């Protein structure tokens, strides 16, 4: 392999990039936009669940209950409504996600020592949101019942009852339970795929469409030189994006990497190489920019987003798709990222993931060579 040939191709590709200023601009803007969106705006966590309340009881106890609910950090009473029909209206228009209806004899039943029903309507359309708020409300009611029991025992002049078991729950790796902490590192995997695979998926196809591939085929260069030359400019763009993402995550959003920075660069470089070879392979095979781009979205972007344990856990998937996740490079990179960012795991516990990525790179690069050789390079 002659480094001079690689350099020449790389320079040509670099000129293409510089000349097409917008593509270059977007190669930096899309990652920036993603990081900002995920860091600032997008969260899967639930707080301040909006509740509308109908209080038919209007007793001191029911008012106290509502006040306690409002004071809890998880709920916000957005409105008191006169009747159940208006609750339906609020839920239909998605202006509240919980409706609480206190029946007229609520306090009476509690005072009489009975089970006093309290009706709660939950908008289940967003299962993530509904699932979490359902948990919050059940725990709130249980806590409230405990208080009622203590009041009751107190009234009866009986000794207070200590709950036999208390769960001391501590959360590891993401102590404040912020979705940002796992989404911002994960987004690096998506960015690398977008920049690495989607941009490069166009570069060889463009040569075919413009007819310049003929010229390249007639040049005295090897397939590996051609591939390296094509990939190098994008490799650097990708690396710059990764650095920007690390920096922004840390400075703007306080998502701090726990393990070594250099290990992160190493892992990102390996994964970036996988993405680049995948993009180039798509480009060589499809020979059309439109098809290449669509294929790239389908086989690189979407799987990285969906089949990689990024936000959607693999364990929930049907087994066919679970085995599919094993051939998605992002699965391994997100595993590594999770270790680096959240668990402070170095190279040793995660070496299989590194190895798989390296093997993937080897296979994809080899396939590229085979296809290009068949084309006559």
């Amino acid at each position, binding site marked *: 392999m002659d480094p001079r040939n690689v350099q020449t191709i790389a320079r040509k590709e670099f000129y293409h990039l510089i000349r097409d200023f917008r593509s270059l601009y977007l190669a930096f803007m899309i990652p920036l936009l993603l990081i900002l969106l995920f860091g600032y705006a997008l969260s899967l966590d639930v707080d301040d669940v909006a509740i509308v309340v109908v209080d038919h009881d209007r007793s001191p106890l029911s008012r106290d209950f509502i006040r306690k609910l409002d004071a809890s950090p998880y709920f916000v009473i957005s409105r008191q409504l006169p009747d159940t029909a208006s609750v339906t209206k609020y839920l239909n228009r998605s202006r509240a996600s919980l409706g609480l209806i206190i029946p007229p004899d609520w306090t009476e039943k509690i005072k009489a020592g009975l089970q006093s029903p309290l009706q709660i309507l939950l908008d289940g359309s967003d299962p993530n949101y509904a699932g979490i708020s359902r948990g919050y409300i059940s725990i709130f009611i249980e806590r409230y019942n405990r208080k009622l029991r203590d009041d009751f025992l107190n009234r009866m002049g009986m000794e207070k009852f200590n709950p*036999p078991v208390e769960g001391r729950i501590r959360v590891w790796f993401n102590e404040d339970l912020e979705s940002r*902490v796992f989404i911002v590192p994960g987004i690096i995997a998506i960015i690398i795929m977008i920049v690495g695979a989607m941009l490069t998926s166009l570069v060889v196809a463009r040569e075919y469409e413009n007819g310049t591939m003929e010229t390249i085929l007639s040049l005295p260069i090897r397939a590996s030189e051609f591939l390296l030359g094509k990939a190098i400019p994008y490799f650097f763009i990708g690396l710059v994006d990764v650095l920007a993402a690390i920096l922004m995550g840390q400075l703007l959003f306080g998502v701090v990497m726990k393990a070594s920075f250099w290990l992160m660069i190493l892992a990102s470089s390996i994964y970036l190489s996988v993405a680049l070879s995948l993009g180039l392979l798509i480009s060589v095979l499809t020979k059309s*920019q439109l098809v290449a781009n669509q294929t790239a979205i389908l086989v690189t972007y979407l799987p990285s987003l969906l089949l990689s344990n990024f936000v959607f856990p693999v364990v929930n998937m049907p087994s066919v798709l679970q085995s599919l996740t094993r051939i998605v490079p992002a699965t391994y990179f997100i595993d590594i990222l999770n270790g680096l960012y959240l668990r402070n795991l170095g190279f040793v*516990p995660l070496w299989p993931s590194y190895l798989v990525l390296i093997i993937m790179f080897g296979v994809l690069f080899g396939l590229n060579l085979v296809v290009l050789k068949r084309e006559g390079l």
Partner: protein
Amino acid sequence: MSWLRIRELVRKEFIQLFRDKKNRPLLIIAPFIQLVLFGYVVTTEVRDIRVGLLDQSRTRESRLLEDAFNANKTFRVTYYCNRPEDLDALLLRRQVDLTINIPPDFSSQIRKGNTASVQILADGSMSNMAAIRISHTMTVIEMFNNRLFKELHPQRADFGRVDLRLRTWYNPNLDSRNFYVPGIVAFLVMLLTLLLTSMAIIREKESGTMEQLIVTPLKPFELILGKTIPFIIIAQAQMVMVTAFAVFWFQIPLAGSIALLFVSTCLFLLSTLGIGLFISTISATQQQAMMTTFFFILPFFMLSGFVFPIANMPLAVQWLTYLNPLRYFLIIIRGIFLKGTAIDVLWPQLLALMILGGIVFAGAVFRFKKNLD
């Protein structure tokens, strides 16, 4: 305006689109793959909580607690450990979601009438799921406490208490599919029209055939109609296909009116076709058009409430989402599918789509015409 000329242009577009064999999978297979992926994959349900357990007490009480977890369908004790370090290692290597450490003095504390504390470590890395796991755990412990309370003090157990009657509307089993599949229907329509419209025009520019179209007697507006009508037809056809698939394969309930779905799709297409036209006026090459399309689609997708609830966003960003046509279309399509809402509830969204689409389309047409001259 001559309908004949428009018809011929539409015909040409269709021939061009389907002649290229590589386009066929793109138009038909790609949407299905995406639908299947989203239908099966996009879920954050907590169905199975893997637990690592360390019982240092080994008494009747500790076993009762263990049973309480085992009896709950969501919990599954996958590892029984002997040392606390093993628990940490399990959590670190992601082999369990939760570890429970029952201390040696567990039952002696309970027998004394004190509160015995159980140490629980939860993997918080996926915070939304961790929150659900934690609330499940707390519920199990609370139920366990209530049982012990009744057992120990039967005479004191009949105090008045709140009985939670929770009813979940619209999606009673909290099935993720019901939420995401209608959403992906909307997303696919947007992706297809945005990309194909801009590409169809750019391709003419790139291959130089735009000049030929301009010298034909086609008027600019006819050209625009001829270029957009094929994609309206394709988008509607795709809508029908994808909806049928969602209803019959994924068993998504379609509670509302199909006619309303059709009308609102047309209104939504006004915006997406307008943006597609706009992209074609600001791009010179297919690569630029694709990147620009992607640049539009990303924020549309993220800031629509598709996966990430709008209510969680900062207020400034929430205002921004009012400019996002997908936001309105998602509310409409989810309303029609899940809630069976009709025009009396959805009119603000429909109106917003109409205004937004009108402005975007008119602006794009204006720019496009200027570009032609």
